[in-house]
């Protein structure tokens, strides 16, 4: 038995204690960067603590130090700089992982899901990164551990644990477009890991207007408040942790339709409560019991300015409750098993899904088992499988196998194959909607039968194309994925990481007509239809040259991506698909003319440079990202991006942040920061509304 394997296994098993033993950042600020570089600990890949290098699935970590040096305040800014990720704007800022729309990436805080998506996007700008110790990103499906939504990847925000003694901090940041961010943090802890942290944050913006010719701003003005509490206490063999978060936002905008002006206001309230009890039953068994509750409520009003008449009104109220028990069994130094089971209840209120006060209420039970096997120092393997049974869609079994192989100390090879799934969206399950003006109707899968029956009883159905009672339950959208890659470390000055991925996706949900109404319009339902694949390579090279007393880190990342709809490939293979130039010339299209799914750049690159010069307390962060052109519309009727005016041209973005840290006492320091985002003022006013041009900011932060 090598002592290394034993040490690793002990770390795995008692890993959560590593928090308490980790050196305080404030005590050893000079070494923090190197330590984070050398041995970051991650939990998202296996739901247990491991060093980053030793996880078998592609995982990226962004440390608090990196986020602070960058001057980031919201999650979107953090993820934008990660190689291979692209921001994706659709009803909020989302993230594209391995070519998937934001719907397919699960966002967690301390391992529990953040809820509340609009059109599939969980707005990353909702999430303040104050009080976050690190952000972990796992690429590829992790549904075998996390269930729905963990199809493209998992983003897990890990909050800072309480530190010993009393600490606190206050930060202010102000920038272009009237953007301000104010944070106050305080915490106290005793020996043995008990303590608490509390965080208050206010984030606001005056919005901006890229199209002054039209009435109303491009993005609304808003004020957003977040408060977060993390506490833990240890007695005997048990540790109780409590996490709580409450956030609300008010936003204001306006728009005009045919010269009539409307006010557009929205408010949002979301909260979560996360108590967790961890008990060491005996030296080989650990039981973790988790309760998690979350709520997400929005209210949207669009009122005509002249008389306050309601043009559009929408309320949405989502509540999620979960209970889960997880047993970790440490059989010996070579075998570790994790077994978990739980159940969740979810209710949906608001006027879109809760018709006549009839709120959809869903039940969900799940269980998973993961076994990790360490046969020797060169090999680690983990296999996991999860079962999800839900009241409104077909059950899913999600397996995954991951292998890490170390042929030499410097080389790590990673291979993982697994299945991911995404539950049908709420509208796909519960919508019951009839358009009063156009006369068509749409029903979610669980509402289709009663909806058709009601329309039939009212004599509105002219022709039924199929009997809804004969339909099978709608299935979750599902994928099979393969990730193969590795890393090569040449001394601690150079590291190359690469990963090739292939995601084969089935059962994507789309609407299809199920009946024709007497008014000639159709009744639509949701069905598992489309298939697509995404494949590509993501890579990053990190170089840390020795530069005297300065610490320098340079990184370059590149991603190649193909994201393609299989129905389009089938159509292209028939030779019947043509394009038409703006001048009217028509030409047959081949696969090479297919620009892929809209919004996906085939090539993207990132550059990152960080310089710290401790003697003067100076820090510098430079970040660049570039994406090649991507399709966004179809103009010649073939539904694919093939001609130049159907693409958003390629663009680069560069950001820079400089920080000066002034020590005021043994544990007190002041940091002054200034930065520029999108330094070269790139804008695409009609194509990319989320790109407001150059933005400047300055901030100050005091920690004690």
């Amino acid at each position, binding site marked *: 038995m090598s002592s290394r394997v034993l040490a690793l296994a002990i770390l795995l098993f008692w890993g959560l204690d590593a928090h308490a033993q980790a050196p305080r950042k404030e005590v050893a600020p000079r070494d923090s960067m190197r330590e984070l570089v050398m041995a970051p600990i991650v939990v998202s890949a296996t739901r247990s603590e491991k060093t980053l290098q030793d996880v078998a699935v592609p995982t990226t970590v962004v440390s608090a130090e990196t986020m602070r040096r960058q001057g980031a305040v919201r999650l979107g800014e953090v993820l934008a700089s990660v190689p291979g990720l692209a921001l994706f704007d659709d009803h909020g800022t989302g993230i594209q992982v391995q070519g998937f729309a934001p719907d397919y990436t699960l966002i967690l805080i301390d391992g529990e899901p953040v809820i509340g998506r609009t059109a599939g996007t969980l707005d990353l700008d909702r999430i303040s990164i104050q009080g976050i110790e690190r952000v972990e990103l796992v690429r590829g499906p992790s549904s075998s551990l996390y269930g729905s939504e963990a199809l493209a990847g998992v983003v897990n925000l890990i909050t800072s644990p309480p530190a010993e003694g009393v600490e606190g901090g206050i930060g202010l940041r102000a920038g272009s477009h009237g953007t301000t961010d104010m944070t106050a943090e305080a915490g106290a802890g005793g020996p043995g890991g008990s303590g608490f942290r509390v965080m208050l944050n206010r984030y606001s913006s005056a919005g901006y207007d890229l199209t002054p010719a039209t009435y109303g701003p491009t993005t609304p003005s808003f004020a957003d408040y977040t408060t977060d509490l993390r506490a833990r206490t240890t007695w005997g063999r048990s540790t109780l942790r409590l996490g709580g978060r409450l956030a609300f936002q008010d936003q204001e905008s306006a728009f005009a339709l045919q010269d009539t002006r409307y006010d557009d206001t929205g408010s949002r309230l979301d909260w979560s409560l996360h108590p967790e009890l961890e008990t060491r039953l005996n030296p080989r068994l650990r039981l973790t019991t988790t309760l998690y509750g979350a709520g997400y409520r929005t209210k949207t009003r669009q009122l005509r300015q002249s008389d306050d008449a309601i043009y559009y009104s929408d309320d949405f109220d989502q509540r999620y409750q979960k209970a889960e028990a997880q047993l970790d069994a440490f059989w010996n130094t070579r075998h570790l098993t994790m077994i978990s089971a739980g159940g969740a209840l979810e209710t949906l209120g608001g006027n879109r899904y809760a018709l006549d006060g009839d709120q959809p209420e869903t039940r969900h039970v799940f269980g998973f088992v993961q076994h990790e096997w360490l046969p020797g120092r060169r090999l680690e393997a983990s296999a996991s499988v999860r079962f999800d049974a839900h009241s409104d869609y077909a059950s899913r079994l999600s397996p995954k196998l991951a292998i890490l192989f170390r042929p030499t100390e410097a080389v790590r090879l990673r291979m993982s194959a697994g299945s991911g799934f995404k539950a049908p969206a709420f509208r796909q399950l519960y919508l019951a909607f009839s358009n009063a*003006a156009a006369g068509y109707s749409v029903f979610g899968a669980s509402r289709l039968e009663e909806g058709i029956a009601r329309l039939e009883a009212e004599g509105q159905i002219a*022709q039924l*194309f*199929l009997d809804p009672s004969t*339909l099978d339950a709608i299935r979750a959208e599902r994928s099979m994925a393969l990730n193969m890659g590795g890393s090569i470390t040449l001394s601690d000055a150079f590291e190359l990481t690469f990963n090739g991925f292939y995601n084969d996706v089935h059962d994507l949900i789309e609407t*299809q*007509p*199920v009946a*024709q109404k007497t008014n000639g319009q*159709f009744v639509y*339902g949701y*069905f598992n239809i489309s298939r697509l694949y995404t494949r590509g390579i993501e890579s990053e090279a990190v170089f840390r040259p020795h530069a005297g007393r300065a610490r320098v880190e340079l990184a370059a990342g590149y991603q190649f991506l193909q994201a393609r709809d299989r129905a389009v490939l089938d159509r292209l293979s028939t030779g*019947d*698909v*043509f*394009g*038409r130039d*703006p001048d*009217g*010339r*028509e*030409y*047959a299209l081949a696969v090479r003319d297919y620009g892929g799914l809209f919004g996906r750049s085939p090539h993207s690159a990132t550059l990152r440079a960080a310089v710290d010069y401790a003697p003067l307390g100076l820090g510098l962060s430079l970040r660049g990202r570039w994406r090649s052109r991507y399709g966004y*519309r*179809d*103009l*010649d*009727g*073939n*539904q694919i991006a093939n001609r130049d*005016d159907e693409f958003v041209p390629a663009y680069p973005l560069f950001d820079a942040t400089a920080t000066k840290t002034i020590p005021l006492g043994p544990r007190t320091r002041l940091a002054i920061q200034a930065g520029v985002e999108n330094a070269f003022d790139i804008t695409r006013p009609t194509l990319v509304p989320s790109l407001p041009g150059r933005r400047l900011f300055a901030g100050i932060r005091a920690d004690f």
Partner: protein
Amino acid sequence: MRFPYTVRLVLLISLFVAACDSSDPDPDPVPITAVTATDIPADPTLIPPSGGPPVSTGRFTLYSLREERIVLASSEVDATVRQQDSVSTAWDIGLRGTTLIFNGGTSGPGEGAAQILAQPFADVLEATEAGYFADGDNTACPALETPAGPVPGTPYAVCSGSDNGWYNYNAPINLISPLAGRTIVLKTADGLYAKLRILNYYQGNPNPPDPALPGRYFTFEYLVQPDGSRTFETTTAE
């Protein structure tokens, strides 16, 4: 070789005479070029004076490809005029919204019929010999795809519905765009062969097509072979 002057004169005269002889069975063919009709209204919608959603009238615009003119506009309300024109063979193609009709079958008294080819307009050098449907006869029209299979649509010569005929409807941005590489080959009311492609559905022939502009205004390019043959390259007709 050089002919004597008189021989050359005789040759020239005989050539001239031959060219003037209308009964000559093999006159010189001349190239034919396509013409474009722009902004042909096809029952555009109007917001009623009392307000509310825009409405259409349900009337066709009837167009003569041979004479390159509107025979009967959808704005014409006089029932007598509409009745006379619609039963005549003066028109070849009718347009209403996204629906196209041809003067034959259930649509009119003429010999009109059509089919859609998956070929670029410029590459269709000859009308297909067979495969034409008159309106009412085309039983192969899928109006729409349902989970239970395709449901037959109205048996028009050019099927209605997105991707079934000449257009694609992009619901999220409410855009009707003509399918590239689709050419309608047709017979006019008097049985002449013609080819036609739709270029735009929006007023002013905007490039690129713009759903913010009024729709139901057709711009289309077409070519009629006046000599009764199937070729679209040259004609022997005057």
